[in-house]
């Protein structure tokens, strides 16, 4: 790490050899305490929980035990990492003193601060970046397993049970990775500097939101070995109540992740509303900030619903309640509604910050002002507003409310209007610009291409009669990969290259960024155009084998997927090698006008020596300056 500093002197206020508790907690204590606590709870539950009566519908006792153990893990882990120290001390009336706060901020700790409950937003940003890369790596590996299995028709080499578990695992962890991939690393590291703040509004909540994600990941990994998430990421009931103990891992994962998202959402929103630099009016606030806020603000109403839906799912499993069990008076449609009330805003949680990040880069790499800032803001606001009103387009053919199909078709198709505004802003900014050809610049074009395909296929899917044919087919899978990966991930990779110099102090290797760009984009389009075609020909999604007629399309898709993998591995190599030994970055390598480029590398602890005062927006490029 480039920001490594020698620890010049041990922190004051304690005798040598006996460090205070706050300094001894780190990821190791967290993992140990989490594991111990899970095992203890597990053993206690095994011993003391009464046997389930024979008549019980599902495996109640095992479900109770595994859910309790997961709660034990969660509480143990969060205690072990030190999340409770602050609240505990506050409750005792002995709040943390200045030195302790400085310790928590990671002052003079070198690399160790990345493994602690550190509150500095830059540390949290790097932590998010690393965990995003890890999750994407695992999710990508699972995708390759799926594609390899589908490489040739009948009889894949993965057992159906395992295959379904892989599909579910790939789905949910990729959703989580894409949700955090912009607002996590760049929303935490870059955003506060960009608005001219010293840190987030609630630094400890910031640390909390990251470590909650770390706490959430092991349950979903373990679930793979206890039956797996065999339901796809949507975990529809009653299929989910029928699934094995792995579902409890999913439930715990979602609940913890939802808390993390809510905490991060409240924190980021507050930071942007309250802590922008003097003079940074809403009209002068960079568009990336709007994207990040729209994303986390959308998550605020969405994720409590997801949380609730999984609590109810867990209760159905553990206590034989019947929220979703038709025989007991519940309804699977209730689950579908709750799930998609979260699920549709959630795709815009992923997409909006990505598009906004590319909008932020567009003026920098075309050396001209952003075209129609107001339309960009209105587009983001319009998408956010409409996205909470469209959820039932996932349920056109569920039979839940056929009479609502027409209204939901209306709201869904209306989204094309604000989405079009975002296109106009990007294309308008490219118009007569002085193109500086870098990987982020090319990513803008890639986004236009991919998002155009993703958007237009979305119109077919929003149309009820066409959806009656396309729903549940590979066409849908290809469509949402075009939006979440083709648009979302493209923006995130561009952001990585763009902000890499500020985050690591080194330039991203140019050649590697270009090689990976072309491999990923070409591979991506081959993969998912092939998938569109087999979907149109009638291949359902989430199948582990298929009819012979789909062989050619699937082979093309698999070959494309391997190309993506090659590209992503090149990118990973680029990240590691550039981070270790890349060219040292100047303070402002892109000659950008936003505030994060006005601070030195490495960014000092509280970012700014004196807080900046903003007198114009950040898009004053172009010759005719007044």
């Amino acid at each position: 790490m480039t920001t490594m500093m020698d620890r010049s002197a041990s922190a004051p206020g304690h005798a040598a050899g006996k460090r205070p508790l706050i300094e001894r907690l780190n990821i190791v204590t967290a993992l140990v305490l989490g594991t111990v606590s899970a095992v203890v709870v597990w053993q206690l539950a095994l011993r003391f929980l009464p046997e389930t009566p024979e008549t019980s519908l599902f495996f109640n006792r095992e479900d109770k035990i595994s859910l309790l153990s997961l709660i034990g893990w969660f509480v143990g882990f969060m205690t072990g990492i030190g999340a409770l120290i602050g609240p505990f001390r506050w409750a005792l009336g002995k709040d943390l003193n200045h030195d302790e706060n400085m310790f928590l901020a990671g002052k003079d700790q070198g690399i160790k601060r990345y493994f602690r409950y550190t509150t500095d937003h830059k540390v949290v940003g790097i932590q998010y970046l690393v965990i995003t890369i890890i999750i994407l790596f695992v999710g990508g590996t699972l995708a390759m397993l799926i594609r390899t299995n589908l490489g040739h028709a009948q009889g894949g080499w993965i057992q159906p049970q395992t295959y379904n578990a892989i599909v579910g695992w790939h789905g949910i962890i990729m959703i989580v990775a894409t949700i955090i991939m912009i607002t996590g690393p760049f929303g935490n590291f870059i955003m506060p500097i960009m608005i001219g703040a010293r840190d987030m509004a609630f630094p400890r909540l910031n640390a909390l939101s990251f470590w909650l994600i770390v706490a959430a990941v092991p349950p979903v990994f373990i679930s793979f070995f206890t039956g797996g998430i065999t339901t796809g990421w949507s975990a529809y009931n009653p299929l989910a109540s029928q699934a094995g103990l792995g579902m409890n891992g999913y439930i715990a994962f979602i609940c913890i992740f939802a808390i993390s998202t809510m905490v991060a959402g409240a924190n980021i929103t507050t930071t942007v509303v309250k802590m922008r630099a003097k003079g940074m009016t809403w009209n002068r606030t960079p568009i990336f900030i709007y994207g990040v806020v729209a994303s986390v603000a959308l998550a605020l109403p969405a994720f409590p619903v997801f949380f609730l839906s999984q609590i109810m799912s867990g209760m159905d499993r553990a206590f034989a309640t019947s929220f979703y069990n038709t025989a007991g008076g519940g309804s699977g449609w209730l689950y579908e509604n709750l799930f998609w009330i979260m699920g549709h805003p959630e795709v815009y949680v992923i997409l909006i910050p990505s598009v906004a990040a590319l909008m932020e880069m567009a003026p920098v790499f075309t050396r001209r002002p952003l075209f129609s800032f107001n339309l960009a803001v209105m587009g983001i606001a319009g998408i956010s507003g409409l996205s909470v009103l469209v959820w039932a387009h996932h349920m056109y053919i569920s039979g839940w409310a056929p009479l609502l199909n027409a209204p939901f078709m209306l709201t869904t198709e209306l989204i094309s209007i604000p989405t079009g505004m975002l296109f106009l802003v990007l294309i308008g900014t490219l118009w007569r610009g002085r193109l500086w050809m870098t990987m982020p610049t090319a990513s803008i074009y890639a986004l236009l291409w991919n998002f155009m395909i993703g958007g237009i296929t979305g119109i077919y899917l929003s149309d009820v009669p066409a959806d009656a044919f396309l729903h549940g087919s590979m066409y849908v899978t290809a469509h949402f990969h075009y939006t979440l990966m083709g648009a979302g991930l493209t923006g995130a990779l561009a952001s990585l290259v763009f902000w890499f110099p500020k985050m690591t102090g080194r330039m991203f290797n140019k050649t590697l960024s270009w090689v990976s760009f072309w491999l990923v984009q070409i591979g991506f389009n081959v993969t998912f155009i092939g998938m569109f075609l087999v979907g149109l020909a009638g291949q359902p999604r989430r199948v582990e084998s298929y009819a012979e007629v789909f062989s050619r399309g699937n082979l093309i898709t698999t070959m494309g997927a391997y190309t993506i993998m090659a590209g992503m591995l090149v990118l990973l190599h680029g990240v590691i090698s550039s981070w270790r030994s890349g060219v040292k970055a100047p303070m402002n390598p892109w000659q950008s006008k936003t505030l994060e480029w006005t601070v030195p590398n490495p960014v000092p602890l509280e970012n700014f020596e004196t807080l900046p005062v903003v007198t114009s927006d950040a898009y004053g490029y172009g010759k005719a300056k007044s």
Partner: protein
Amino acid sequence: MSDVQVSNKAKWWKSADVKKTAIYWVILTPIIGYVATEVQLRSIGAPASEVMASVKSLMGIFTWAASPVAGLVAALALTSLMGKRHYGDNPPPDADHEIRNSPRAAATWVVVSTLLCLFALITGLIVLQKDSESILDAKAININVTGQQWVWNFDYPESNGVRSEVLYLPVDRPVVFHITSKDVKHSFWVVQMGIKMDANPGYVTETAVTPNKIGVFDVRCAELCGLLHAYMQNKVHVVSQADYDAWLSNRAALEGAA
């Protein structure tokens, strides 16, 4: 400054960039429209019902309606790519203008996209209306569809309790499916007829279609339903009315014997 703007306004369409874009647009739009329509409609294959035929024509119409927009974005992108490009580690000089807005372009864009959106909506609603009316057809055959892990069962209640795993339908007769499930959620998809409806445990949902082609088509499950979801598929035989009646009486006799 204002002079420049006025003179720009007067002849904005004469600028070389605009002309280039217009040419690209005119060339790209039909190419995009043609390729996208052909590739998609060919993959879908021949329809076996009116419903599927209208899905195909809807997708064709939408693709053609969207292609001028896609063509314009592609043309603008191409123009910008063909303009001044700069490679290197240091930024190029700034662009020679500072256009921050164009109320006319923005307004045109928003109005046109709104009109396209309304067009898509109205076209869709017309087809939807036509499709939903077919459920009310009094002359229709009724078939009960039951999904269970991992097989479809078809009951012909008007024909002495005949039950089958392969669906038989007479050609050119409307049929209404009453769909339910015994365990988890499935989705009943008759691929070449363009209909799909979820099978929910405890509820009966309905969808209707009139097969208009004799042949063998596919029934698949389109909602992940557990271990053998991929194998939950079977055939639908669309036969002439005479063959259908013969098959029904044959089945009824068989089941009576058993």
